[in-house]
């Protein structure tokens, strides 16, 4: 039996510097939930398939169930609790509400992080591409229709905003 050894790590979580002692085997998801009391990150399959635990590490979506906390030394971690001032995330949250894009809510934190990545990375995505990009996040309630609509709503709003001439936009 291997001896339990903890390691000291320093990282940033939701823009705050954090220093903690972790076992190497502790996943980033468990670390956030059980040591940082940030329970917005949900754990589903623990094998990287369901997407419920998806959050941002250094600005990109990451599966926190198969990423150890100790491997995130000096990383910038942003969990669902860290998006309150994020304009795009707030648009997505409103769209998820409007389109009934959640029922039980278990997949929602991961869905929102993935949806934000889609809108930022693929501003021209059509429904087919949105569905393809969402294929790594499982939802057992909605049948995905509402989620796809919510992402499309934000994509279309952003495209329309970009098309609006500046003078019109500022006087509107």
């Amino acid at each position, binding site marked *: 039996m291997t001896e339990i050894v903890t390691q000291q790590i320093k990282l940033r979580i939701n823009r705050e510097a954090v220093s903690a002692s972790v076992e190497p085997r502790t996943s980033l998801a*468990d670390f956030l939930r059980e040591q940082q009391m940030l329970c917005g990150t949900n754990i589903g399959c623990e094998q990287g398939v369901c*997407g419920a635990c998806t959050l941002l590490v250094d600005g990109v979506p990451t599966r926190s169930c198969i990423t150890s906390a100790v*491997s995130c030394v000096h990383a910038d971690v942003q969990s669902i609790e860290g998006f309150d001032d994020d304009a795009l995330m707030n648009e997505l949250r409103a769209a998820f509400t409007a389109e009934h894009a959640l029922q039980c809510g278990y997949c929602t934190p991961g869905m929102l992080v993935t949806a934000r990545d889609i809108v930022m*990375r693929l501003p021209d995505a059509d429904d087919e591409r949105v569905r393809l990009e969402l294929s790594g996040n499982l939802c057992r309630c909605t049948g995905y229709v509402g989620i796809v609509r919510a992402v499309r709503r934000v994509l279309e709003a952003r495209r329309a905003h970009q098309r609006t001439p500046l003078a019109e936009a500022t006087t509107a």
Partner: protein
Amino acid sequence: MKAAIYQYAKPATGESAIALVAASEGMAKFVSGSQSLGPMMNLRLAQPEMLVDLRGIAVLRECRNEGDTTLLGACVTHAEIEDRKFDDGTQGLMPYVARGIAYRAVRNRGTLGGSLAHADPAADWISTMRALDAAFLVAGPHGERTIAARDWMTGAFTTPLEADEILTGVRLRRLSPAARWSYYKFNRKPGEFAEAIAIFLDDAPAGVCRAVVGAIDGPPHLIANARELIDHPDVARLDPHLDAAGLESGSYEYLVHRVALERAAAMIRENRKQL
């Protein structure tokens, strides 16, 4: 489930990484993105006593155009390849393949070298590197060596890598601007491991016209001269190659691989893409 207890180190040089694993008497493993090893450890299919993280070794992220060849460091991620963060010299083949690997959250962390060292027969890079005839660059306690693509995979999840050797990168011949390719992957759900892979690569100026049948039980099967399969849309011509790949005639696996090969041949013939 949760992973068994292990220790973790993230050295800054290849030498120290190799020394750590060499000293462990087979109980330590190298890791990079952990997108395959992570799930295996959570399921306790793998229980190494120590992980040596290679992502702190800067040289493993180096990529460069060397003129006739491209060097790709082992620790580049699938997402970086997808986003064309560097000049891979494959005329769009590698970015296309990368986009079909798992999901973006996995691609952001999973690495080229990790996938190749893991050697899952159903993984994309194993078959793609065979089609590109990559040279596998390996470093270990006794120095460096190069392993040819045909020798890389000796069986499912099996490579010639010793436990204390690192795959540092791959070297690829740069494809001609005139090169054509097609890649067809069959899976039931986007992002799953493939049930069948078929690749064609026709680089006439370089005298290369080959195909690969991948996602079979063992290493990917090379069809060294694929010209007649491209030129003649005749399904019967595929069968000898599927037999040679070790597929059992008439089985489900045989049929899905035949469909994949047929579709990949049609795609290169008609200059189409799957996605």
